[in-house]
């Protein structure tokens, strides 16, 4: 069992059926699990802000969704968050696979990852860094329910502590 299983369970328990994403190595188990399950509608977006826009439209049409991306992709969505999700009060669920820390080999990823939490804090979006399987089901279920009840977005940051990080990284670190 991987961290992806409780994630799929939490989505299903909360009627979240749209999965939209820009791919990432770490997210692959979740992307594959959703793609292979008829419960979900999977949409591979070309850019991360597209994924966020599609999620917003789907919510208004009555379909709950999650947008998944990597930290570098998160840096593309500041405007979508600040001028669409936050002002329109869309309960967007956003899952970010965290690169740039705990064994990163690419300096570009390191720098861009530093922008993520300050951006989220500056526009008062709740975020949780997921580090262990034990607390995962509680954090996911309660936060997803809170998002839809309060009509506010929530961002889940998938720490390498939980996922093991980018599987390709080890060979590139000296």
């Amino acid at each position: 069992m991987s961290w992806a299983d409780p994630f799929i369970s939490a989505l299903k328990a909360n009627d979240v059926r749209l999965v939209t994403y820009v791919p990432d190595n770490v997210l692959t188990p979740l992307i594959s699990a959703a793609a292979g399950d008829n419960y979900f509608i999977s949409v591979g977006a070309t850019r991360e802000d597209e994924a966020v826009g599609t999620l917003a439209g789907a919510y208004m049409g009555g379909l709950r969704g999650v947008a998944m991306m990597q930290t570098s992709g998160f840096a593309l969505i500041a405007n979508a968050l600040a001028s669409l999700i936050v002002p329109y009060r869309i309960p967007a669920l956003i899952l970010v696979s965290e690169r740039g820390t705990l064994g990163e080999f690419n300096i570009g990823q390191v720098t861009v990852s530093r922008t993520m939490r300050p951006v989220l804090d500056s526009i008062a979006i709740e975020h949780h860094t997921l580090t262990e399987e034990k607390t995962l089901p509680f954090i996911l279920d309660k936060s997803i329910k809170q998002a839809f009840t309060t009509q506010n977005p929530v961002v889940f940051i998938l720490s390498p502590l939980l996922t093991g990080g980018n599987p390709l990284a080890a060979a590139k670190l000296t």
Partner: protein
Amino acid sequence: MTAPTIDAASVKILNRVDLTKRLVARLAREEAVIAGIGNTNFDLYAAGHRAQNFYMLGSMGLACPIALGVALAQPERGVIVLEGDGSILMGLSCLTTIGMVAPPNLTIIIMDNGSYQITGKQPTATATTADIVAIARAAGIRNSHWARDESHFDALISRPFDREGPALLAAKIDAQPGTGQTVRDPPLIRHRFMRGLGTGRRSPLDE
């Protein structure tokens, strides 16, 4: 259906207010209409508010992705998105996504005046070199057409919006500014739109 290609340079210059009114007059099945930032949404509002209208106030370039989401959520409902040339150029990637996902109930209408009209009329790439219809076709939206004139636009929108898509219709338009002014209250816009789509919350406050 693939109609003969019409050269963008050969089409008549139309008027956004007029085309928007023609579109709204055609809507008989509570189709959702998502209008992008700026003049497309001002003129949609000016054409007469409908409960199924969504007015985007920020997030330039995301009207089509928002419409894609609505179309996926409500596959029985026709969904139409109104965008300007500057906005669609900013988010061209969504055309490839829409081409790939191919929602049959999505129609994109591009109002192309070849300029960032609202910021000082700076030219966009469509003023000289880029062709939105050709781009859309190459992105996989085969059912993409320039409107030759008003009657051709009428013919193009005489389609079942809930099927046979995705489609993209584009019109070259004049430089007339937007004519309306949407209320700038995003939660209110969203709430009313969701009511129009049958997905809004009801509460004792509504009594």
